[in-house]
């Protein structure tokens, strides 16, 4: 097992960190939540952050926490799709395609919500669960999944997720189009 320092992984895949924070900020703006401070990328832990006012509703908290998962996943497919077929299927060595694959995979790798995101979601879900908010109830298993996924980062789960999303999903979709 190759262990690479987190800061180095963040540096190599910095577009993913930027998109992750931009996605948090996007959902804050969408739901009218004030963003008090934002750092899109830095060498440190965390590699980026968004500090926002506490949301008034749980739905807003949910989307701010899960936002990067949605946006990073979609952008991973968008950037990998045009490059996947020429490189993976036809073995073309096109620098633009390689650049798009690096970009897409970097973004896909940072799709998983962080443990910080999971902590916030857990706290908010516990508060909202009393009123039997369906999204809050659905969030409990989701938070567990996020913790598990973060634990599996040690085994390159984030990279595997990016690979599955950027390479395997488009291939599967194209096969279904036949």
């Amino acid at each position, binding site marked *: 097992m190759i262990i690479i320092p987190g800061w180095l992984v963040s540096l190599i895949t910095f577009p993913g960190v930027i998109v992750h924070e931009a996605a948090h900020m996007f959902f804050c703006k969408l739901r009218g939540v*004030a963003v008090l401070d934002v750092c899109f990328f830095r060498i440190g832990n965390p590699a980026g952050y968004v500090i926002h006012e506490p949301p008034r509703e749980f739905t807003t908290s949910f989307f701010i926490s899960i936002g990067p998962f949605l946006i990073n996943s979609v952008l991973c497919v968008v950037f990998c799709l045009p490059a996947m077929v*020429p490189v993976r299927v036809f073995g073309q060595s096109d620098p633009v395609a390689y650049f798009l694959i690096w970009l897409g995979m970097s973004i896909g790798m940072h799709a998983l919500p962080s443990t910080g995101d999971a902590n916030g979601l857990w706290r908010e879900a516990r508060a909202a669960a009393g009123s039997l908010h369906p999204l809050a109830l659905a969030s409990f298993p989701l938070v567990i999944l996020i913790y598990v996924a973060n634990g599996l980062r040690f085994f390159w789960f984030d990279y595997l997720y990016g690979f599955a999303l950027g390479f395997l999903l488009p291939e599967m979709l194209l096969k279904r189009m036949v």
Partner: protein
Amino acid sequence: MRQSTCGNCKKTVPMNQLFTVFEKVLCTECANQELGGYQGKQLAPGDVSREVDPTICVHCQMDNGNEPYSLLAGAPACESCEAFLRHRPYPAWLKAAAFSLLLLAAFAFVHNWRFVQAYLEWNRGMRLLQKGDLDKATPLIVAAADHVPESKELDTSANMFRAISLLKEDKSREALQLLRQCKKHWPNNPTVNSLLLQAELGAAFDDKDYDKFLAAAQALLAANPNDSSAMAAVASAYACKYAVTGRAPFKKESLRYLDLARQKAPPGDPHFRDYADRITHRLQTREIITREEYERRFPPNREGAKP
């Protein structure tokens, strides 16, 4: 701006310059004195906090006189700061980068569309091949190769399927040229080697070189010892030799291989039945005619007309 009094020196100072240190409200100087003895020691959260003047915006320091501002995340904020924070714009570099990269992805998508088309055509072709529909599969595979001319694999595959179609049309010489190109790229591919032998025996038949026809048929059978078509090809070659020389051993060998082929052929296979009928006709008449001529004389729907 609101003023307040230090709990230690009793000096009146702006509220923003006061601190709560261990629950005592102190001015900056008194707070520093109080904390002087704590240097290097661990302070708990809440031991020290700054007093917040609700009439001063924490973000831009705008003074609202004696009127408190509304709170944003627990801190007073003026209207313009609140509006800015609620709709904080993305930095220009981020917007420019996002626009450029999405444009690049769109360009790459258009530029690489031919690869996607080729991939779809190839998969459709393979699916049709699995269903045994070579006639519909071949144009798709050829189209895929045309979309990605730089792919040697795809070009070779297209040539192989073109050659199979040509073999079906009895155009062995044209098929032979294509298969020789395939052989250069795939020297050890058993399918190509087998097709090459079929093309060679077809070309030898067209040239009336029946010794070469027999040698190619025997090589094909050696490569595919359980294949009924290869056995029938040997039977056909011996039938040709018999037709030309009239020597009985050739007829005997032809009938022997035809019998072996019949045992291996799928029951009721119409292609094998037609081939066997042509070989039998050759043995009975000692006349060597092409499949086209045979079908002209004995149309497939006139069963009774066949010898």
